[in-house]
């Protein structure tokens, strides 16, 4: 084959590939798909919860709506890194103006080292420019649109409903020590970025740690507590008050102390509800016409969680 033909074919194929990716990107880029935070009306949320799976198994926005009338969303993503949480938050804040952001701290310690994180940063920046790459995983939603599963997810407002119990029997795990588990360089940069973004948008950032013997310890607590102190942030380490919350490790975890189940999540949510009510003073939207969808969803939620009368 002549070199000129090869060049023409190579350019032609790359052009075709680019065109197809550009055409498909809008299809995958989320707009208002059911079950997503982007489905919530603009500027309708009072608080957001961000983090990894510890986050989406610990706070139930619908419980908070039921007891306090706060509208919020649990944005937790399984095994999420803090970098991804930052970029996700940045995008979410283009549509929402919450007063509080609750950051679950487990993801701060998801650290793959400076070099690896630098390499993945390149992937992120390139990927960010291509909607299909960034949102490729939405193929699941594309298939599920209109299905019962999507509707069911939407009434949970991001929380994952987990029942069943597999007890944690390891005993006390918050041993008294002054040692610290260092926060990675990249993780601290992104923690600073999240704090900076919240300051810029006049949002109160609250760090909280879900009771999790498998993931948390005193060394991690000491590091985050120090960071919170230096940056004048509130840090609620619920591991220290698990007993006070009424966490029963024989019933409130579905995987031996890794994550809380729904029963555990209700206890944590109740505590967070009191905190948001007493210390932040979020408004109660129950009965407001603009929030009628929340009342409607509450019925479905109660039915799904077996709380309907």
């Amino acid at each position: 084959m002549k070199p000129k033909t090869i060049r023409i074919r190579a350019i032609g194929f790359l052009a075709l590939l680019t065109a197809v990716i550009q055409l498909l990107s809008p299809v995958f880029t989320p707009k208002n798909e059911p079950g997503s935070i982007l489905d919530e009306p603009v500027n309708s949320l009072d608080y957001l919860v961000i983090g990894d799976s510890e986050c989406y198994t610990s706070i139930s926005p619908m419980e908070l709506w039921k007891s306090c009338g706060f509208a919020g969303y649990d944005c937790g993503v399984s095994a999420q890194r803090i970098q991804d949480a930052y970029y996700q938050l940045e995008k979410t804040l283009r549509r929402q103006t919450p007063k509080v952001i609750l950051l679950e701290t487990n993801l701060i310690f998801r650290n793959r080292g400076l070099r690896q994180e630098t390499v993945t940063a390149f992937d992120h920046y390139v990927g960010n420019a291509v909607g299909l790459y960034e949102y490729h995983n939405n193929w699941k939603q594309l298939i599920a649109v209109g299905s019962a599963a999507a509707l069911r997810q939407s009434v949970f407002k991001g929380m994952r409903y987990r029942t069943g119990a597999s007890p944690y029997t390891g005993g006390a795990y918050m041993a008294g020590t002054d040692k610290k588990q260092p926060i990675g360089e990249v993780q601290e940069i992104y923690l600073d970025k999240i704090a900076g973004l919240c300051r810029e948008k006049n949002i109160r950032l609250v760090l909280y740690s879900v009771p999790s013997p498998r993931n948390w310890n005193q060394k991690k607590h000491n590091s985050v507590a120090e960071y919170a102190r230096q940056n004048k942030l509130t840090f609620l380490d619920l591991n220290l008050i698990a007993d006070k919350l009424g966490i029963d490790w024989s019933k409130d975890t579905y995987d031996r102390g890794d994550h809380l189940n729904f029963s555990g999540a209700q206890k944590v949510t109740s505590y967070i509800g009191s905190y948001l009510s007493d210390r932040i003073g979020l408004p109660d939207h129950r009965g407001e016409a603009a929030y009628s969808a929340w009342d409607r969803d509450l019925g479905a939620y109660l039915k799904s969680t077996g709380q309907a009368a």
Partner: protein
Amino acid sequence: MQYVSLLYLLAFLPLVLLLYRLLPQRRRWRLLLAASYVFFFLMSKQLIFYLFFSAISIHGIGLWLDACDAAAARAEGEAAEAARLACAQKKKRILCYGVVLHIGLLVLLKYAPFFGQNLNALLLKLPLPVQLPELSLGVPVGISFFSLQAVSYISDVYHRRIRADDNLGRLALFLAFFPVVVEGPICRYSDTAQTLYEGKPLEYENVTFGIQRMVWGLFKKLVIADRLNILVEKIFTNYRDYSGIVVLLGAVCYTLQLYADFSGCIDLTIGTAEMFGVTVPENFRQPFFSRTASEFWRRWHITLGTWFKDYLFYPLSLTKHVKKIGREARKKLGRHLGQAAQVFLPLLAVWVCNGLWHGAGWNYLFFGLYYFILILLGNLWEPAAAGIAKFLHLNREGFLWRAMQTVKMAAIVVTGELFFRANGLRAGFSMFRSIFTGWSAAVLRNGALMKLGLDGYDFAAAAIGLVFVLAVDILHENGISVRRETAELSLPIRWSIYLAAILLVVIFGAYGTGYLPVDPLYAGF
């Protein structure tokens, strides 16, 4: 920088290809060497020293061995025989230095903590107040691979299969070539070094075939392996929470993950090398169609198996002591059992080393011994099996018999991989027992499988991906090259297939938000 990262695929590799294309042919190997060292440095930082040291040492040892041969060849008359003997002795010593140096370094870096911990545990049981200090040195990525390549080079020079290379750069490139340095395949100098050095022009067929192979590798790694990783991690980390079908599912998924991950990364490796016109040996040949354990290892991680065969099994089998054992055993036990007795020790050495090569842990040693016993028993049983089949008029080449053997072999492989992946030997036994003790079909109905980190869509994507892999493996088993067949199609159809393949990887890959990047599994061995 992983082979599946965008940094590698969209920046590093295209840049190297572009520069390679622009440089004159005689300088291209220098570019490949520089790119390989940059690639290695990005992953192992100052530990690059070990790679450099390996290159320098095999260069020196090779020339030293060559010098011995030259000195012996120069001797004439009566002195010739004495010189030849002296040369043989000296060469043997040099070979020993080289092997001890490289294998010693590998053992020191990779296994010192394991041996230290076990020795300390032993000392604790003795009335000796002695404990060895913990020795934990940095382990450069790929050391298990480039050390074996270094030893194979020295050994080949020793046996005069190849001439010693006086070009340090060519040897350094042979050890460090960036597509293979992380997880092989384990190359031989005679197959690879010259094609690396030649700086062949980029050819249309090589580049297109190379890209196709890379896309296939990405499909296996991203769509199947990294997706299954979530479930595998969950089950093996929290193995006490699971039993019965779930543990079995974990073992099966890990086996499939390992195959998709390792063979996928090898596809990326071979595809990259192919673009540069470099010959790299195949490492897999449809391993799950194997009918016996020894056949499985001729199809799985082929280059490791052949390395052990050529550089450990044969040299040990040909030692005086082992040959003597064989002779004695044949006299007393007959031909078949005598042969088995002769290969017993070399085979044991191979499988102990194979197990430990994969990692410093008792479960790896167990994994090696597991296959040792299976292969040994397979060899012993073979004449009896043939006799029984003949007596019963069973057709051992019939479809049904072959299918049964393949299923049996799959079960054996899955069992081995369970111990291989388990967090220690004790955990392996605990998981193996739990398969039988906690058997309940209820998990198939009560949604327990959906709590393992994968949803229904993930299971479907992984299953469809595996069907693709199975279909391609069947075609390859029947001697059909998918890439060659596709290349024969008309341009619109061909391009549609290529586009579809790329989009499948981009859309259904388990990467980005919600997925942690998974390092190539064999890079950790």
